[in-house]
């Protein structure tokens, strides 16, 4: 049977009785020579993603988060056997332990920020329909305009990030930022927040929104620290 990984824990711990995972499979704890993991046995090595299965995955991770902050696995991590899982995680043991220390006692809060679209410069219509050198110039002007827009978007996202970071200050232990990419107006700022500071963190963002009429943000959480697992994977 294949083994589906939900999360990695600081020590072996059994999941709550009757906790079900992907496709209703029972979840069990695995002892990885000191580290723990929650897994399910699957009939296949391939797990096709779906919203329902994503919810099942996160439900298991959330159950682990209730008592202690785990390192959540990305959806779809399946290995052929428990021995293979043990070998893979054993290779990364020191990295995993460091990551578990980093997230201990904390949760992830995620801030989605709408990045205002920069004002688009009007196109030069005098060259509309032109051919040859004129159409070439028009093309280059459009490329330059798009590049300017992307730079402005990134700069605006950076300003928003700094504003939010300043508002939450030392309430957070770490942050991870995904700036707005071309064609998108969404920037994401993830914070690692000690559990006892979650309400203070929410209040700080509420205060920020009351002070800054231009800000439109969405805050979600607490999550397991999905955004703070970089450097662990393959």
């Amino acid at each position, binding site marked *: 049977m294949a083994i589906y*990984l939900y999360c990695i824990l600081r020590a072996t711990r059994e999941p709550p009785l009757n906790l079900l995972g992907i496709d209703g499979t029972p979840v069990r704890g695995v002892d990885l020579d000191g580290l723990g993991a929650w897994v399910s046995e699957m009939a296949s090595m391939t797990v096709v*993603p779906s919203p329902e299965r*994503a*919810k099942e995955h996160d439900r298991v991770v959330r159950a682990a988060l209730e008592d202690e902050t785990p390192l*959540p696995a990305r959806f779809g991590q399946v290995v052929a056997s428990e021995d293979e899982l043990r070998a893979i995680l054993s290779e990364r043991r020191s990295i995993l332990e460091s990551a578990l220390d980093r997230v201990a006692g904390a949760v992830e809060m*995620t801030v*989605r920020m709408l990045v205002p679209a920069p004002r688009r410069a009007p196109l030069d219509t005098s060259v509309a329909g032109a051919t040859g050198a004129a159409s070439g110039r028009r093309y280059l002007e459009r490329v330059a305009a798009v590049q300017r827009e992307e730079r402005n978007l990134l700069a605006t996202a950076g300003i928003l990030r700094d504003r939010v970071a300043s508002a939450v200050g030392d309430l957070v232990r770490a942050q991870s930022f995904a700036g707005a990419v071309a064609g998108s107006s969404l920037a994401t700022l993830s914070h690692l927040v000690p559990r006892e500071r979650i309400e203070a963190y929410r209040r700080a963002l509420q205060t920020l929104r009351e002070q800054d009429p231009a800000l439109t943000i*969405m805050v*979600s959480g607490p999550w397991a620290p*999905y955004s703070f697992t970089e450097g662990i994977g393959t």
Partner: protein
Amino acid sequence: MTGAPLDPADDDALVLSDLLSHVLDKGVVITGDVIISIAGIDLISVSLSVLISALETLERRSVGVSGRLSHPLGDLSLLHPPRDA
């Protein structure tokens, strides 16, 4: 928290979109990337589009809304001040 609650009609889609962008795109990877699309539809892109759309809708509303939703999949707050703030 001031303002009206979140629109219940949008709650599930919004929370699910946020969940998909975490679960499918982040977390420890031990076996390489997995397929993240169904029938060629990129679930992460779709989920981010829903989130952008929700925030843009909030931005366009003439009366500002803020609200907090306690959902089995996690709490979610939309924060935007009234236009006349």
